[in-house]
């Protein structure tokens, strides 16, 4: 029994629409020839569907296929890999659409459409893209409905409505499955776009690097505090510590001979001594901040956190220099939760090798600066005293905080300290650290971000690239590593209010700010409110949807179900899907709805009702003529009007040739109204 299904004509448009909609996200970021190919395919299909052309034969289609593969290879240099693979998929999608004749072909196109939608999500995971993909899904479902509706007279809009209804019914179930289906660990590792360059902090600091970052308002990370949030002046997001200085550039360094397992603590591994000490200290109930960070991709492994972070979840490790390290480069948005306890910093010791590293400065750099430092050392015996002297020096001498510092000559340290005296945070942090080391105080540069802007809607914090900052830490005998921010001595408003205010007060004025586009929520107005809302939605999308990983899930399910066990999850899954299906079944199967009256029926019943109200109740089931007779009997004066109504009604209602048009129905209504006046 062979049935030959053809794709019905009422579905052709939907199919074309689905192909175009699904392809658009890839075409926008893809190569131009892909758009050309799709346009060609759509044109050919259109001509074929309007009988202007026969369907291209196998030879033409094969040539197109070979062409698409060749162009893909030409454009990407290979046929595998994410970009080339997606380009190939989209081309195949278009070419498969070209040869749709039977229902089976349409199924293949629709299934390819699902994959094309999935690849769109591979490259962009915004809320907007997801909504767009949902729209594509709805159109694909419409195509499914259409190809299964073999009545030739069916209407395309009805398919659309049906598909929309089904998709809307499927969405709550999708949410349930999304929340409850256990997240499994990846079966094998796949990463997309791992070699893309990104703006962000690099692992070294030379003059000019951070001021460059400050020209970008791009998002660095967001923070969601569980309880109170530290004040702006205390929000130092540590990223990296830089301990090695070559006279121009500060670099990250670990003292030689220390194994990684001693330096880095990964939750679950052996605890190094220093971690045991700070962990014990933390147990003693010191105050801390709990928060979740959602970091933008940096392609780097380091992460940002407040002083002495303890990882709560996320694939992260803690290094001895009180910073977090991701276990692999952050190539997508990445969420981790930590508790920061500033007070435990004093428990971290400084070994001999570390002290050696933290005091090292190149022999030939900063001769004058060394002299200054030696002098301070003689004047004040304690390390704290020396630091105070240095800050005082920055405060009292004519130092300027500027985003556009002049170029520094051969010896950056001396040149900055004694000649230009105009610099950005990196200059201050660098020279301060140099001075401290020269004076015999172990010191290091810390780079990260400072401050962050609060979104009042979500009470989360936004840290942008222009919040990038550098400061110093010095080792004090009884306090351990202590933060000293020399920039605060020069430009306190930078720390208290942020970069924007700091620059507004400087001579560079706000035109520079406009140049840089450092605009933000607090500028006020509707636009600010909208952008605040957009940020809030995006943030929640990040945390609740994209960040819904196995840890978050088990936490959420723990709250929901009391305890997380496979049986409980299975029961919850079955019950919730069952309840939803039950509700839908009730809605779909037992809902009959009222039988809809036709317009003519309504016309009849109105008169029937009116006559019954005014006079004797009339029996149900009278023909129009009988109704007319009944009326004439009760109201002889209305006989003529009733007669003309009934005749006209019959003429309209029983005319098999054409249903009554609007004008005729209006005339009938007029006749009825005339009759009404005579019934009293």
């Amino acid at each position, binding site marked *: *029994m062979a*049935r030959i299904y053809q794709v019905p004509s009422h579905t052709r448009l939907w199919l074309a629409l689905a192909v175009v909609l699904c392809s658009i996200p890839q075409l926008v970021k893809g190569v131009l020839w892909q758009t050309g190919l799709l346009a060609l395919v759509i044109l050919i299909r259109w001509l074929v569907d309007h009988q202007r052309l026969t369907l291209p034969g196998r030879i033409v289609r094969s040539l197109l296929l070979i062409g698409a593969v060749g162009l893909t290879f030409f454009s990407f240099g290979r046929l595998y890999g994410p970009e080339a693979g997606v380009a190939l998929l989209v081309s195949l999608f278009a070419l498969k659409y070209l040869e749709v004749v039977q*229902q089976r072909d349409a*199924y293949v196109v629709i*299934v390819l459409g*699902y*994959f094309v*939608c*999935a690849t769109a*999500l*591979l490259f962009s*995971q915004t809320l907007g*893209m*997801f909504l767009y*993909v*949902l729209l594509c*899904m709805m159109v694909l*479902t419409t195509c*499914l*409905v259409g*190809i*299964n*509706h*073999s*009545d030739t007279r*069916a209407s395309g809009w009805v398919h659309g409505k*049906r598909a929309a209804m*089904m*998709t809307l*019914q*499927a*969405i709550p*179930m*999708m949410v349930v*499955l*999304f929340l409850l*289906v256990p*997240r*499994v*660990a*990846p*079966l*094998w*590792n*796949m*990463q*997309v776009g791992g070699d893309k360059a990104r703006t962000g902090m690099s692992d070294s600091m030379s003059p000019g690097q951070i001021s460059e970052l400050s020209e970008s308002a791009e998002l660095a990370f967001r923070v969601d505090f569980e309880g109170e949030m530290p004040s702006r002046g205390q929000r130092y997001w540590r990223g990296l510590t830089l301990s090695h200085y070559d006279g121009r550039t500060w670099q990250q360094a670990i003292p030689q001979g220390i194994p990684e397992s001693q330096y880095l603590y990964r939750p679950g591994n052996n605890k190094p001594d220093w971690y045991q000490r700070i962990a014990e200290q933390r147990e003693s109930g010191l105050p801390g901040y709990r928060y979740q960070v959602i970091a933008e991709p940096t392609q780097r492994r380091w992460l940002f956190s407040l002083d002495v972070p303890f990882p709560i979840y996320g694939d992260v490790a803690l290094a001895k220099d009180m910073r977090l390290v991701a276990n692999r480069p952050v190539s*997508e948005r990445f969420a981790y939760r930590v508790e920061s306890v500033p007070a435990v910093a004093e428990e971290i010791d400084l070994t001999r090798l570390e002290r050696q590293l933290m005091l090292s400065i190149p022999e030939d750099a900063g001769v004058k600066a060394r002299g200054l430092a030696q002098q301070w050392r003689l004047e004040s015996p304690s390390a704290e005293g020396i630091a105070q002297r240095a800050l005082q020096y920055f405060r009292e001498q004519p130092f300027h905080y500027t985003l556009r510092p002049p170029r520094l000559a051969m010896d950056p340290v001396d040149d900055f300290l004694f000649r230009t005296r105009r610099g950005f945070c990196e200059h201050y942090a660098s020279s301060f650290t140099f001075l401290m080391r020269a004076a015999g105080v172990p010191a290091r540069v810390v780079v990260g971000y400072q401050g962050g802007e609060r979104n009042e809607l979500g009470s989360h914090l936004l840290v942008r690239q222009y919040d990038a900052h550098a400061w110093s830490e010095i080792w004090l005998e009884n306090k351990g590593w202590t933060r000293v921010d020399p920039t605060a001595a020069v430009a306190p408003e930078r720390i208290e209010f942020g970069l924007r205010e700091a620059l507004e007060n400087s001579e560079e004025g706000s035109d520079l700010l406009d140049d840089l586009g450092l605009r933000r929520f607090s500028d006020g107005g509707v636009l600010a409110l909208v952008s605040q809302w957009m940020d809030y939605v995006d943030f929640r999308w990040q945390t609740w*949807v*994209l960040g*819904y*990983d196995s840890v978050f899930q088990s936490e959420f399910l723990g709250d929901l179900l009391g305890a997380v066990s496979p049986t409980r999850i299975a029961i919850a899954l079955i019950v919730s*899907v069952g309840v939803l*299906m039950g509700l*839908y*079944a009730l809605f*779909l*199967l037992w809902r*009959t709805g009222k*039988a809809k009256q036709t317009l003519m029926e309504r016309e009849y019943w109105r008169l029937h009702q009116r006559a019954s109200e005014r006079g004797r109740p009339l029996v149900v089931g009278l023909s129009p003529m009988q109704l007319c007779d009944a009326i004439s009997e009760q109201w002889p004066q209305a006989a003529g009007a009733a007669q003309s109504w009934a005749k006209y009604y019959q003429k309209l209602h029983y005319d098999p040739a054409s249903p009554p048009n609007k004008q005729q129905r209006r005339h009938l209504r007029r006749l009825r109204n005339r009759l009404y006046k005579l019934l009293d």
Partner: protein
Amino acid sequence: MLMPAPIRNLYERWLARRLPPARQVVLDQRRIFIFPTGYGFFYLLVSALLFIGGINYENNLILALAFLLASLFMVAILHTFRNLSALGMRNGDSESGFAGEEGALEIVLFAQRRDHHCVWLRWPDQDAQQISIRRGEEESLWLNLPLPERGRVTAPRLRVESRFPLGLLRSWSYVSMDHYCLAWPRPQESPDCPADGGKENQQSFSSGQTGNDEFQGLRNYTAGDSLRRVDWKGYARGRGLNTKQFEEPVGGRLWLRWDRLQGLGEEQRLSILCYWILQLDPQRQPYGLELPGLTLAPDTGDVHRWRLLDALASYPDF
């Protein structure tokens, strides 16, 4: 479906018990079965692939897409079921045919609660026919039925199937209609007409029944008169309803008799009678039929011929 014979028997018996024959059937959850089609399994496979992709790329949105596909499938179960549920079917007319050829049965489908789209109906091993029924309307469908041998051919189990709306699932039901088609005997040529005819038989059949050859006059119509004999032309001219009366034909009536075929097998007798009915019919001479247990008065015309053929088909249980 390929099944070993014992299992097939068990299945048939179970079906027969579950779905007993009836003149009218409204499909409900007891009668409707539902199972994914090949495309449905393919669709689930795609959903599973997307799930694996989402897991591997750690991409929650691709996971959500996989879940959306799975959810659509679940919702489609209800919608596919709904498309058959509450569909009513009852016996319509039947069209007889000669044994070895095809007859046809009319199935009237009615939709009381909702529209039913793209419903396929078929007998086993026959071509399917598609129909859509709008709510509150009735549609009838003629389904051809092969008639292997003379007699009453009861309707086999009718398969009602639908894949609407997504084609991912097939819902179906077997409907045993208490409906049959008559298979007339296959005509067998025979030189001797098994008929009596002549004036001597006239007397025995003058009882009220009137032959239909020679026009005699008109009388007032009384309820029960054949509509074929109403003087419609006169009625149209406003002369009221009258029934035409006819006189016995000159040639007399012919009686085809079972008894005149002594010594032959039953089926053969019926086949010969059938042959002669077909031979006599064009001759415009009234002929009757006498079978054991049934006598049909002589007459002419299509309806008469069909009545006789149907009598042959239903022999011996009229």
